[in-house]
């Protein structure tokens, strides 16, 4: 049970947050121009690294803001949280 640093509200219990999977996957500009394979990649295929992972979280039980985090999937340690729209920070596990 971790403390997650909401970029707005500060550290809160893990239970106040909702997980949103891999970050920085943009909705395609023109989906109609994608092949079925490319579209499937967008819908279903996400990275699943063992190690650092940039991912989306929402402070659903608090300010309801989505933000991004870099977390180590081996230890679950949050190395950084940052607001939506901000670039992924350089961090090391």
């Amino acid at each position, binding site marked *: 049970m971790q403390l997650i640093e909401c970029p707005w509200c500060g550290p809160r219990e893990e239970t106040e947050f909702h997980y949103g999977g891999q970050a920085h996957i943009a909705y395609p500009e023109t989906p109609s121009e994608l092949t079925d394979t490319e579209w499937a990649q967008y819908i279903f295929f996400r990275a699943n690294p063992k190690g650092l992972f940039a991912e989306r979280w929402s402070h659903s039980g608090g300010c309801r803001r989505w933000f991004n985090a870099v977390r180590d*999937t081996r230890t679950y340690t949050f190395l950084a949280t940052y607001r939506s729209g901000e670039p992924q920070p350089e961090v090391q596990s």
Partner: protein
Amino acid sequence: MTSATPPGAHLPEHGDFLWRNPEPKKSYDVVIVGGGGHGLATAHYLAKNHGITNVAVLEKGWLAGGNMARNTTLIRSNYLWDESAAIYEHSLKLWEGLEDDLGYPILFSQRGVLNLAHTEQDVRDSVRRVEANKLNGVDAEWLTPDEVAKICPIVNVSGDIRYPVQGATYQPRAGIAKHDWVAWGFARKADEAGIDLIQDCEVTGFVTDGDTVTGVCTTRGDIACGTVALCAAGHTSVLLDMLGVPAPLSSHPLQALVSELLEPVHPTIVMSNQVHVYVSQAHKGELVMGAGVDSYNGYGQRGAFHIIERQMAAAVELFPVFARAHLLRTWAGIVDTTPDASPIVGHTPYRNVYVNSGWGTGGFKATPGIGWCLADTVAHGRPHEYVAPFALDRFVTGALVDEHGAAAVAH
């Protein structure tokens, strides 16, 4: 003072000899990556059904030490869709003869599973699944709350709980087994057939030549191979990343727990999606429970405790007699899940590499079934009919096998 030993105290002894600890050879016809239940079962059926024995099973830790050592051992086949019912029912039939096949006690106890329904929609979904099961030749019944109480008297079927039990589906042939016995039974048989079970042997890369993998790099040296079968469960993505093959898998912690030994009180297996718990009582008397997967991707064999607490609340809500049972030990496995909660099995872009993954919470019950089908797939170089629907390309065509309803609770 009672001195008679209680029921279930005497489990059969393990065998005097289980397996050799061989050095890896330079080359094998088939290399199976992952010495868990699926890898060991595949090895066994390669030898038994196809006479293929120049096989290595590579295990990065100790044999059957991943999810096989951590699961809650539920075996059932009452899945909704035809494709799922086919492979799980095939597996269940193999379970029914497995003790003889392996010549090893696996303590398969067909005590039935109740899937409780708590809402009107639960009832509809349950009836739908029961009727589908019957038409697919899978034993299934719909029970009223009173009938539920007859099968499992400790379930609280009174109307005054938060989500009263409206009924349940029942599969009498479902059951539990002892996971170590199962894994070691497969391992012993595979070893006996001459298959090399190689532990402390982590795969670090692959040697490729065009669309062919010619060798596997490991912490115990490079090993040349004819065919590769990936049976690495939660670590499949790590292996596929080495091959540059994307797959819609995500690895999540899945927690389980046991109580201390208790006198027999729970004769069957009970699952509830709405109240989110799954309970059986193992042979020696401990209550064994699981819940849903932890939400985030994770490769650590541990999960968040609030999941366990919620599970305890659910357990006490449904089984008031459990109030003063004690949580003895918690642990977690790493399950690989897919967008439609069905596995991904079959070809990869490499012509001699087969993937077997995405079993989520369903891996244990599938063990003999997938071992059988994957061995057949490897032996013949094409997907066995039961795994064909679970090909990777279904995510492109949209031909998903959506089993979310069946998989909401760990089992």
